């Protein structure tokens, strides 16, 4: 083993597999921390909402909410397929599915923007009542996480286009996939909690 710096070390497939496992554990830990982050919001929401269980009429547009749910679920599918193709080293398909995921995320944000605009036009802001405070808090932070995911997807799409990935080295895509599915998971609970129940 050389004691000089390995400027030109060749990273074998075994190295990439090993590093993928380290990064997977790191990503699951990060997702654990994200679960705890949203736990505080959801927990607080439960407390406040349950104080008014019988009385709250659903002030949100269920159709737009359901549409966004379908959009995100579809984006999870395209993300999973993108990861699958990257594991096979299939650059073109990977790029297509990454782009599809990105575009679906854009659709999600557009729908959300439409909803927010309707609220603002009606004079409904976080200060309107505590329910809307939670609505903007939860969807706002979820939206921030969507935007973060989109930035990652954009970077990945570009790196994929440049040929950075192959069937051995593709864990950034896989890790972003885990993050993206988590973003979908939060919405899977957000949608019923805010829109339906």
């Amino acid at each position, binding site marked *: *083993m*050389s*004691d*000089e*710096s*390995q*400027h*030109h*070390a*060749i*990273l*074998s497939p*075994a*190295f990439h597999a*090993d*590093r993928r*496992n*380290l*990064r997977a*554990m*790191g990503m699951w*830990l*990060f997702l*654990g*921390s*994200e679960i*705890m*982050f*949203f*736990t*505080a*919001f959801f*927990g*607080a929401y439960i*407390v*406040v909402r349950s*104080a008014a269980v019988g009385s709250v009429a659903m002030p949100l547009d269920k159709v737009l909410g359901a549409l966004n749910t379908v959009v995100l679920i579809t984006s999870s599918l395209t993300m999973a397929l993108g990861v699958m193709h990257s594991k096979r080293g299939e650059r073109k398909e990977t790029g297509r599915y990454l782009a599809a995921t990105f575009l679906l995320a854009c659709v999600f944000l557009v729908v959300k923007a439409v909803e927010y605009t309707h609220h603002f036009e009606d004079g409904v*802001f*976080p*200060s*309107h*009542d*505590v*329910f*809307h*405070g*939670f609505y*903007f*808090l939860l969807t706002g*932070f979820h939206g921030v996480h969507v935007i973060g995911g989109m930035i990652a997807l954009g970077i990945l799409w570009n790196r994929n286009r440049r040929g950075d990935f192959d069937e051995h080295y593709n864990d950034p895509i896989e890790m972003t996939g885990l993050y993206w599915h988590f973003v979908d998971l939060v919405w899977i609970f957000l949608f019923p909690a805010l829109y339906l129940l």
Partner: protein
Amino acid sequence: MSQETVDSVADYIHPEATDFFHKYVWSYDHKIIAKQYMWTSFLFLILGGTLAMLLRWQIAYPNQPVPVIGGLLKSAFFFDANGAISPDGYLQLGTMHGLVMVFFVIIPLIVGAFGNYLIPLHIGARDVAFPVLNALSYWLYLPAGVLMFTSFFVDKGAAAAGWTAYPPLSDAAGASTPVWGMNLVLMAVFLAGFSSILGGINFLVTIVKLRAPGMTWSRLPLVTWAQFITAVFQVLATPMLAAAGAMLLFDRLAGSSFFLPRGLVVGQNAIANTGGGYPLLWQHIFWFYAHPAVYILILPSMGFASDILAAFSRKPVFGYRAMIISMASIMGLGFIVWGHHMFVSGLNPVMGMAFMVSTVFIALPSGVKVFNWLGTLWGGSIRLQPPMLYAISFVSMFIVGGLSGIFMAASPVDIYIHDTYYIIAHFHYVVFGATLFSVFAATTYWFPKMFGRMMNARLSYLHWALTFLFFNLAFFPMHFLGEAGHMRRLMTSTGYEFLNPLAPWNEFITLAAFALGASQLLFMFNFIHSVFFGAPAPDNPWEASTLEWTIPNPVPHYNFKHLPTVYRGPHEYSSPEAEPADWLPQNAPPGHGGAGH
């Protein structure tokens, strides 16, 4: 050199940085990042300590102008027109002292500095799992710290609602809270928290995945075990703080009302807010984090003390396995005791009882550790060098701090002593008396490895003696003050007749505190001077057995030329197999008795 194929992350060596920027500013080397944390934390320690000195002046000499500085800074920052501390200024000082010490001194020091430096060396790795993330963690922490202090410069000053930032005081417009100061502080803490979470993830993956061959879980130094448990808290508890801070910022900036009820009246003014929220909600979310935070503050220092006591007693730690089980119990219980900070807040009394039970239970593992430290010392061949002296004081002051904690755990007692100086005495004994002394121990112990030089032993002895003396003089009387009913966060006690007899104590404590602060100059001088002019250190001045002492000073950027194979536990002192030497390094193969490289 010909190209090499690297088959695992553990084998990989980062290219060594060549230019100043990549060597000392944006470095991926855990040892450099550790030193960055160390210097920055020591700087914040000086600043945070100064805030405390100003507090103590006001308490002892109410409304008297502060000498020198007060004259220069009349009406600026926390000074009133006469150069004395103003009421808002007093609250700012107390709040910022707490926040700076917890988030910008202790955690970065024991986790960011020592954790970073030691973990890879202790497990036989070349660096942490995610070196880029490591650099990012430091570069989130430093700007966060700067942001904290900029809050002093904005209109109405820094945060002033206590480090616990309870609403409505921290929340409602119309309460006397500074506006942008509080917002900046919340953002700074959010950034520091993010740094902490990323660091915790890094250390967990490092310890689980990058241990050298033969470094099983039961051969890890206790420093590493302690950092592991600490990292669990960092990753899973800190996000609650981030969420609480986000909700508070939302209340303050977006007009929501998560923590403000309807019909809130502050002073004579009804606060116009949406209502529907609960102040108690903040307390639950905040303390869900802040209680595990105090375990973050103590566990690494317990780790340092354990390994240092073993090395200087020339004995294995008594009850190594029990130590690990204790730390694991603290990890499990540490998440379910937070309500003991809320006994008098209006918490459901049944929940109060449940939290009392869990809190009393969590004292047990700490007690086990104390007995094990004493057992380590018992019958040992004691070498009373500076690290050992600090480590023994750690144990004694942890006992005092822990005992006062037992009283607080009992909710009937806590109803009386909550928010008094008794509480202040308790946490200063565990955070200053225990943790900071352990930091002194760790600094003097690992200084030779970090900087290739020895710290001056005489100065260390003198620093130890003065700090130990003045620390106890300053903080032990606070137990009595608390029992007498002296409230905390009180700017002046002269308004309360029943506190008048205690005024001499307040002055006594302040004088001891000033002497305590002055004594730290010795340490600062010793540290800085020794970095540049200290006596060159041998590779293993303490004849210690853990892996970091098997490599030369200065430690090369790749740590280990060949990844070590570990055959033994971390405390092979006075092992018969080692004769004629009295210790064996962890990587000494079986049957090759005797110490040495």
